[in-house]
């Protein structure tokens, strides 16, 4: 199973740019055109879901591929979201305020030395095949991750500090730690049924997608899956927290975002989130449509520029070809000072984002940190030019910055070919840095993970989804995350290794007092900001839309103003209430603008095809000579 095209083996749900495969990309052309055409010309199939014996189906448009359905391997956001629905975790996050609430465990406590944790496992939960859920299942899951390296692929960072896990009784789970660990109430590890999984021989190959229905204990049971086509789950009527209101939940694939939006307009899908979110144009036009609600909430992601500080292994062996000038803190500061984050929020995200500050998005209020006035790298091109002069990069006659060795200052930036935001911001950076006299080559690739792991880049567009517990996104910047061997994929984000940051990281992991820990996390962000290897440009909002004639209500997270897709829990799909039976009015008649566009594009294509056909025919006739 190939990993999602992103660097690093990591642990947590994240939207880090699940890349479309090449073929998908080529298919996209045709799809977007048919989307434009099909929408207005074909009558919408009336509420396909209602016809099915009164079964209520909630259909969600997704684009990201499932990397694996095995909880031991899955890393992409779509897969980890599905696991949230299939399996219970020890604890869950409250939809209101992200605080820890009981799930499979009803109570938990740590010993005085902070090294032993005891969980009480609920007694009223059953696996979907009728077996009882016991502490033994949880113990087996953790022990497997500790013993088998393959099983630790996705969530290994949670168990690497575990000494021993035992189940003294069916309702008692005891975890002994080597060192105190603050993430013990935020163990995002799906617990699997021992009686099913102990028959698996090789965890690195088992993808959990052969035997349906897949035995689970979450609010939904996985019943069907077809790669890049759909994932179907049915409601678990016996779920202890209460059965979901919809009978079926289907994740259907639309590799092209415009096609997903068209499907939403037609009522083929109930919900579309976009990947990573709907574009401003789509959101604006959907907001005007009947029976569609556009939901905008603060995002979990940050969108950043990452500098390659010189790739190296844990032992200090250097590799890759990062630009040496970027090891000069003044050069990095000059680059970031010449970036106008406000313009990026206004023009690229058109207001659907919050300006980047420290590191963790403001949505996680406890941990959110912003630089002080004197620390902040505010937009100031004049200061940037000054900094470059100081660093010894003077402008030459042609207006290019030249180093002492006489070489012009030219950087490369690694960009995800399928992410429009990367490309758009790339255009702005080229112009801002061009003014400074610095050349920038925007390298857009389908597969960025290889050059990323090999350290073959100067700068890169970077972004991670952040969990309520910040341990993971902080851990990717520690020395311990560096690779063992050159070019090997590892947990590191961009090869940062800073002693002071590491010291703070160790302290926060061992700190059980939430307030003190939050303070340490803020200090870490301050340190990270000062090293100047990361520049968080924006926190993009989640912009998503659903049909109000199919979904009556749905829980966002945070409940006040939050997102629906990719929550840190199963709240949205579990809580969704179907709309009353009589399907609302199907789209308006007549030719919409969409139709006009579709017809226009079709006409263009027809002419093009005619030309091609003419050429072809001529060519073959000539060939016979």
């Amino acid at each position, binding site marked *: 199973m190939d990993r999602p095209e992103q660097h690093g083996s990591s642990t947590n749900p994240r939207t880090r740019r699940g890349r479309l495969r090449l073929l998908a990309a080529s298919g996209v*052309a045709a799809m977007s055109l048919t989307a434009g055409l099909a929408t207005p010309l074909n009558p919408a199939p009336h509420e396909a879901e209602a016809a099915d014996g009164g079964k209520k189906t909630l259909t969600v448009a997704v684009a990201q591929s499932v990397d694996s359905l095995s909880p031991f391997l899955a890393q992409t956001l779509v897969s980890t979201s599905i696991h949230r629905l299939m399996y219970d975790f020890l604890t869950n996050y409250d939809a209101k305020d992200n605080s820890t609430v009981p799930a499979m465990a009803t109570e938990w406590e740590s010993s005085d030395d902070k090294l032993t944790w005891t969980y009480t496992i609920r007694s009223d939960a059953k696996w979907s095949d009728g077996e009882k859920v016991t502490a033994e299942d949880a113990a087996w899951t953790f022990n497997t991750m500790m013993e088998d390296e393959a099983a630790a692929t996705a969530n290994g960072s949670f168990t690497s500090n575990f000494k021993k896990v035992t189940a003294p009784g069916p309702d008692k789970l005891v975890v002994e730690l080597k060192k105190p660990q603050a993430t013990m109430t935020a163990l995002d590890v799906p617990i699997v049924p021992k009686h099913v999984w102990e028959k698996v021989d090789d965890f690195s190959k088992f993808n959990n997608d052969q035997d349906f229905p897949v035995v689970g204990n979450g609010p939904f049971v996985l019943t069907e899956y077809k790669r890049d086509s759909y994932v179907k789950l049915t409601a678990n009527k016996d779920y202890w927290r209460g059965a979901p209101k919809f009978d079926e939940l289907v994740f259907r694939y639309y590799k092209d975002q415009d096609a997903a939006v068209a499907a939403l307009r037609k009522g083929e899908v109930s919900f579309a989130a976009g990947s990573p979110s709907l574009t401003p144009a789509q959101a604006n036009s959907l907001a005007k449509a009947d029976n569609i609600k556009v939901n905008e909430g603060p995002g979990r992601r940050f969108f950043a520029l990452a500098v390659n500080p010189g790739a190296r292994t844990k032992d200090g062996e250097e590799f890759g070809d990062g630009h040496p000038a970027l090891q000069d803190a003044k050069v990095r500061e000059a680059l970031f000072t010449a970036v106008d984050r406000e313009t990026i929020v206004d023009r690229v995200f058109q207001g659907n984002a919050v300006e980047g500050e420290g590191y963790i998005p403001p949505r996680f209020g406890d941990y959110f940190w912003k630089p002080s006035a004197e620390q902040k790298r505010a937009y100031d091109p004049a200061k940037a030019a000054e900094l470059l002069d100081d660093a010894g990069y003077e402008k030459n006659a042609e207006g290019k910055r030249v180093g002492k060795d006489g070489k012009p200052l030219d950087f490369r930036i690694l960009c995800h070919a399928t992410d429009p935001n990367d490309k758009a911001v790339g255009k702005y950076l080229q112009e801002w840095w061009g003014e400074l006299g610095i050349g920038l080559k925007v390298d857009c690739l389908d597969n960025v993970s290889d050059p990323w792991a090999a350290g073959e880049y100067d700068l890169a567009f970077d972004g991670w989804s952040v969990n309520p517990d910040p341990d993971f996104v902080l851990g990717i910047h520690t020395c311990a995350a560096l690779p063992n061997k050159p070019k090997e994929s590892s947990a590191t984000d961009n090869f940062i290794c800073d002693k002071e940051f590491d010291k703070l990281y160790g302290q926060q992991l061992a700190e059980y007092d939430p307030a003190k820990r939050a303070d340490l996390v803020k200090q870490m962000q301050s340190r990270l900001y000062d090293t100047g290897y990361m520049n968080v440009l924006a926190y993009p909002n989640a912009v998503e839309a659903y049909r109000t004639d199919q979904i009556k209500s749905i829980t966002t997270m945070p409940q006040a103003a939050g997102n629906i897709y990719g929550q840190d829990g199963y709240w949205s799909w579990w809580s969704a209430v179907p709309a009353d039976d009589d399907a609302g009015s199907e789209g308006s008649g007549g030719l919409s603008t*969409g139709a006009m566009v579709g017809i*226009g594009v079709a006409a263009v294509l027809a002419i093009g095809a005619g*030309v*091609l056909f003419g050429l072809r025919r001529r060519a073959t006739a000539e060939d016979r000579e």
Partner: protein
Amino acid sequence: MTVHETTDGAAGQGGAAPRSARALARARRLHALARFWRQYRSHRGGVFGLAVLVVIALLALAAPLLAGEESRSVTDATGGALEEPSGEFLLGTDQFGRDVLALLLWGTRVSLMVGLLAAFLSVAIGALVGITAGHFKGWYATVVMRITDWFLVMPTLVLAIALSTVMARSLWTTILAIGVTTWPTTARLVRAQTLAVESRPYIERARALGGGHGHIMARHVLPNVMPLVLAQTTLVISLAILTEATLAFLGLGDPTVVSWGGLLQDAREAGAVSSGNWWYITPPGLAIALVALAFTLCGRAIESVLNPKLGVSR
């Protein structure tokens, strides 16, 4: 011919004398050109195509004057995002607030340049392979023609996509990807013509007089396949422009260069199709179709003038 040229040198000293073969040749060529133009003029489609091309070429050359350098800049953009056509922006704006009409003008340059260079590369490869394969025959021709066949059966677009995926995204990659995938047709055409030319008696005569391989291919075969190559080039250009637009639309072009296919790709990424922003999608599409059509019309006309076997079709 060689004899004439020596007289030319000798006559030079005599002063007046018959105005030499060079002048004669020039007059003959002028005459041929005039005849070509007369016949070309009779193809209405060809004339229309040529007129369109001249206008578009002028627009492309004048783009910096008409649209201005700053119209491509995202930081200097004056409009709002995806504004509808208005007096200020005749074709509306893109998602960065840039004037779509100005971008369309700038895109003309890229499309024409890529089309011309890729077609040139493709035809150059095709002509080289075709002439050498037709001339040398034997095992060389067998091997080369099998390679040609292999390229011929490979779907052009798939091969071009594969090439532009593995290489860095730039205009040159696109040109190369189109060039190396579209040559087999030309190669087959040129080889057939080469075989026909080489079977004529004067080639045998040239060989008997000591003409080497290089001499025969360059002095006798090439001038004879040139008209065919010229017509082929014109036709391949439209194919190259379409392929360039396709690749850019699929996101395989250089994202920092403004091209027509790139505009379509930007529009798709902005969600313009489902949002009904027709002013952003339709103009680049029509422009691509128009230029491809114009080149095809010209190519057809040139072909029917130069190749009497095709008769009077227009």
